[in-house]
């Protein structure tokens, strides 16, 4: 495959990479060349430094991520320009910095200084290449994980990179969305794009990879070679080192279907007992959106029930409803005949254990050993805790913070603390999500042990191998309904159902179906049809104008002045702003009571001049002077609120922030950093909710101390911090480095913002009016 090229694109010789503060190098003695037009698959156990190596190849190490690199690395000149190495990251949520699709793709083009006139065509081209059919103003936050990854590919392809790196792009995706990404990678391979792909679920990719690089857990290359040779010769090694799971089939050694069936049949028959959990006509709604629609289901004691289905089908919600964490809109949930909603949380969570998808939600303590004991244990770790630590391979980390563990360790810890006490039912939300085969096996072995003891296990999962091997019953959830309920064999005989529930990754993606599904979610009518005069002004200038006006209003000390300014702001909001009175009142009324209180506070506390008639009421002093003064202050505040509401309604947020960069000398680093930070805001509300649920399960102590607040804030803050690091790296990977981050002049802008005569006019007008009110009235 290498005959096409003369010199390699990238050469690594005896490369080692150290992170500061770590004792051991994460990657060592790596010698590797990447030739032009070559597709390289990288695999290895989790924590072996695959991503670190990929970041070195992308020149993100040591520029964006600090690390010490030894050995020699030679990049071809083609790779030296910013943005010439495209990078698709693992976390679909943490690689974007803008709100709309077009802004997102344009971001990389702007950093390159491309003429804005050429951008729309390039954006269209990139979307087409990535196979993402969405309008330019679609909001990427609304996308499914798969669509986000396709957008990630589009942002990379827009820059026509010489090397494309995929760092576990499907780790967070369901089988169908994964196969969408694989289809793209296959197409790019056919165009002879140079690619480096890290992927756990590599089977579907093998036909499109020229070479495979296998790492061991020490960060050394174990083997490089053609896929067929390596996988045939190294299969047992791969299984031993937990890179592939023992029940996975070697794609190069075809296994007869008959044996597969025997495997399933050989499992012990479920010893099912009485009915444990019953759901009757359960309806769950989030606002207007129905998540589960009249769903009925009963679970017997001793079952291992797997809930499968596409992303967003309501699997997690179903699990939460079962645990009583989510209240249904209608319907009953019975746990051993008792209504879950009326059970005390304490009783409920003695019977059932729940394991969240994100293990961090469950952590309350600052040390792993305390976490496992569910109390502060001091230096003497109790024996039962030590046993648990050993069983899950966490003994070395006993005194560390749960948040500092690797992903695999965190998951093992959360499962371990769930298994600490005996429960009747174990509910697990994607227990093997994002884990390597080794961690997965450790978790599954523990669960299998409990199942043997006659306990009930209910889990949601995307992993069909896992379902086939262990579950005694499968429920397929799709579009708010149960599509299938029965044993695995029956499900695998229904390809139509499998396809509908996104459970098949091995066939071509039905794109027609995908597009229609995206359509109703993403294609919302564009809201930039008609602009009011105020919306035509430069948003950042408008913002500053309002701020100056609000500051001036602070000097209105007489009632007529305050009223005058208030009328002026009313004129702006309803006249130039063209806000409808009804819409305004709807927004405004919740504040009404607050203003009455505020008004009263002013009246009651204002110091009247000596000799004024004063009435004493409780500890307040009331006077007519105070009444008038209080009105002045309250009206002044109302004016400020009017401007505030107007800004939220009238201004396009992206324009506001970017406007500061283009016209008010704010360095691009701050403007785009702000956009990236604000983009993650919607995620916080869902995080908060899950955190509260997790605390409910753990049975949080009633004593609310100062420190308790801190442990409560830790998961959310740490999530935010990690996310911001990833986002910053992703932005730098798209050429947001050096002078383009410091000066607006060094880059171009897709959005055309310019200060016009009207902006000056409005500024002078509002200031003049304010000045008039203050001096004349």
């Amino acid at each position, binding site marked *: 495959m290498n005959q096409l090229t003369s010199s390699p694109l990238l050469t690594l010789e005896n490369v080692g990479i150290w992170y*500061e*503060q770590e004792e051991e190098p994460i990657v060592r003695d790596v010698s590797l060349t990447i030739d032009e037009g070559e597709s390289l698959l990288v695999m290895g156990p989790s924590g072996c430094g695959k991503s670190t190596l990929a970041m070195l190849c992308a020149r993100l190490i040591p520029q964006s991520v*600090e690390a010490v690199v030894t050995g020699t690395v030679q990049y071809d000149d083609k790779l030296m320009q910013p943005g010439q190495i495209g990078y698709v990251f693992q976390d679909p949520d943490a690689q974007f910095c803008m709100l709309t699709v077009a802004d997102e793709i344009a971001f990389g083009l702007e950093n390159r200084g491309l003429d804005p006139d050429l951008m729309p065509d390039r954006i269209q081209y990139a979307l087409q290449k990535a196979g993402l059919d969405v309008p330019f103003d679609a909001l990427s936050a609304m996308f499914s994980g798969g669509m986000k990854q396709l957008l990630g590919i589009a942002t990379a392809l827009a820059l026509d990179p010489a090397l494309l790196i995929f760092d576990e792009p499907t780790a967070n995706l369901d089988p169908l969305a994964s196969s969408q990404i694989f289809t793209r990678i296959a197409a790019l391979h056919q165009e002879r794009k140079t690619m480096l792909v890290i992927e756990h679920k590599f089977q579907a990719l093998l036909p499109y990879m020229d070479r495979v690089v296998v790492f061991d857990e020490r960060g050394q290359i174990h083997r490089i070679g053609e896929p067929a040779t390596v996988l045939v010769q190294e299969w047992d090694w791969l299984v031993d080192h937990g890179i592939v799971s023992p029940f996975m089939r070697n794609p190069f050694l075809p296994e007869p279907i008959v044996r597969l069936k025997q495997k399933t049949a050989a499992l012990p028959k479920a010893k099912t007992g009485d009915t444990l959990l019953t759901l009757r006509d359960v309806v769950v709604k989030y606002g207007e959106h129905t998540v589960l629609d009249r769903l009925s289901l009963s679970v017997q004691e001793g079952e291992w029930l797997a809930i499968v289905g596409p992303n967003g089908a309501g699997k997690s919600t179903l699990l939460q409803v079962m645990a009583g964490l989510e209240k249904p809109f209608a319907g009953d949930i019975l746990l051993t005949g008792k209504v879950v909603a009326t059970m005390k949380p304490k009783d409920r969570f003695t019977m059932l254990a729940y394991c969240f998808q994100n293990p961090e939600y469950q952590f309350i303590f*600052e040390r792993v050993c305390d976490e496992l004991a569910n109390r502060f244990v001091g230096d003497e770790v109790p024996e039962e805790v030590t046993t648990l630590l050993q069983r899950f391979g966490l003994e070395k980390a006993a005194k*560390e*913070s749960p*948040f*500092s563990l690797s992903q695999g360790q965190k998951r093992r810890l959360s499962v371990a603390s769930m298994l600490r006490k005996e429960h009747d039912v174990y509910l697990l939300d994607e227990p093997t999500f994002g884990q390597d085969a080794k961690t997965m096996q450790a978790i599954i072995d523990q669960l299998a042990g409990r199942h043997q003891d006659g306990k009930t296990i209910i889990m949601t999962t995307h992993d069909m191998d896992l379902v086939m091997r262990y579950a005694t019953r499968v429920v397929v959830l799709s579009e708010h309904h149960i599509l299938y309920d029965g044993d695995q064999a029956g499900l695998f005989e229904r390809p139509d159902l499998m396809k509908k529930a996104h459970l098949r990754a091995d066939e071509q993606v039905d794109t027609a179906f995908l597009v229609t599904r995206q359509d109703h979610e993403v294609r919302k009518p564009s809201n930039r049809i008609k602009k009011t005069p105020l919306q035509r002004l430069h948003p950042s200038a408008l913002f500053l104008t*309002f*701020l100056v006006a*609000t*500051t001036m209003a*602070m000097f209105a000390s007489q009632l007529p002045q305050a009223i005058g300014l208030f009328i002026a702001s009313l004129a702006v909001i309803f006249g130039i702003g063209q806000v409808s009175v009804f819409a305004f009142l709807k927004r405004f009324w*919740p504040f009404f009571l*607050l*203003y009455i*209180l*505020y008004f*009263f*506070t*002013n009246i009651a*506390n*204002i*110091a009247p001049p000596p000799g004024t008639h004063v009435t004493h009421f409780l*500890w307040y002093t009331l006077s007519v002077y105070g009444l008038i*003064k209080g009105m002045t*202050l309250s009206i*002044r*505040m109302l004016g*400020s*609120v*009017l401007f*505030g*509401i107007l800004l*939220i309604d009238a201004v396009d947020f992206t324009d506001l922030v970017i406007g500061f960069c283009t016209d008010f000398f704010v360095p691009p*680093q*701050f403007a785009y*950093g*702000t956009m990236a*930070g604000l983009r*993650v805001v919607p995620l*916080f509300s869902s995080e908060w909710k899950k955190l509260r649920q997790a605390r409910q399960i753990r049975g949080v102590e009633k004593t609310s101390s*100062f*420190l308790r607040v*801190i442990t409560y*804030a*830790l998961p*959310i*803050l*740490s999530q*935010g*911090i*990690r*996310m*911001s*690091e990833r986002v*910053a*790296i992703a*932005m730098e990977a798209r050429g947001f480095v050096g002078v383009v*981050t410091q000066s607006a002049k060094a880059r171009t802008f897709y959005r055309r913002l310019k200060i016009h005569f009207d902006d000056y006019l409005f500024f002078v007008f509002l200031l003049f009016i304010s000045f008039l009110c203050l001096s004349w009235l």
Partner: protein
Amino acid sequence: MKWKLRDVVVMVILAVVCGGIYRIWDVLYPLVNTAWVPSQGMLNGLWFIACGLIPYIIRRPGAALLAELIAAMIEQALGSQFGLQNLIWGLAQGVGAEVAFALFFWRNYSIVTMMLSGALAGLGASITFYFQGGNAYVGSTVFLYFLFSAISGAIFGGILPKLLGDALHRAGILRNFAIGKVVAKKG
């Protein structure tokens, strides 16, 4: 001392969280304030978490001011009852906190500096309070308001953010930020 992109992003994300928390305190405000105006001073520190926590983590010039401003903007965007006046409060509090860090050339983030920063944020809030209507109140009210704000600022805007930052640091997620580097060197 130079800002990195990740400093900016982490500042904004943390400021957003703080802004959301501020919006919750906003509901308390009229109740406390109506009962006794200076008692509001005692709570004021709760609005200075951003201008304590964020500079403590990223340790960059301007971090306190920018963080407090962004948090105030978020609070306002979430429908705070104070409208654009919010930004003026945020500005004054941020400037106050920033002065404390500037006095030490942005090199000292000890507990004393943190408390001073919180107290000066309280001074900023008190000055705003004075111009936003406090000047119409009895002198003792204004003085108590300032005193309580400074104390509350030192606690909620100084000690609390330090504890939070230290806890985050112990969790090992701040290694790539200034706080991680400084503490690592000492150790």
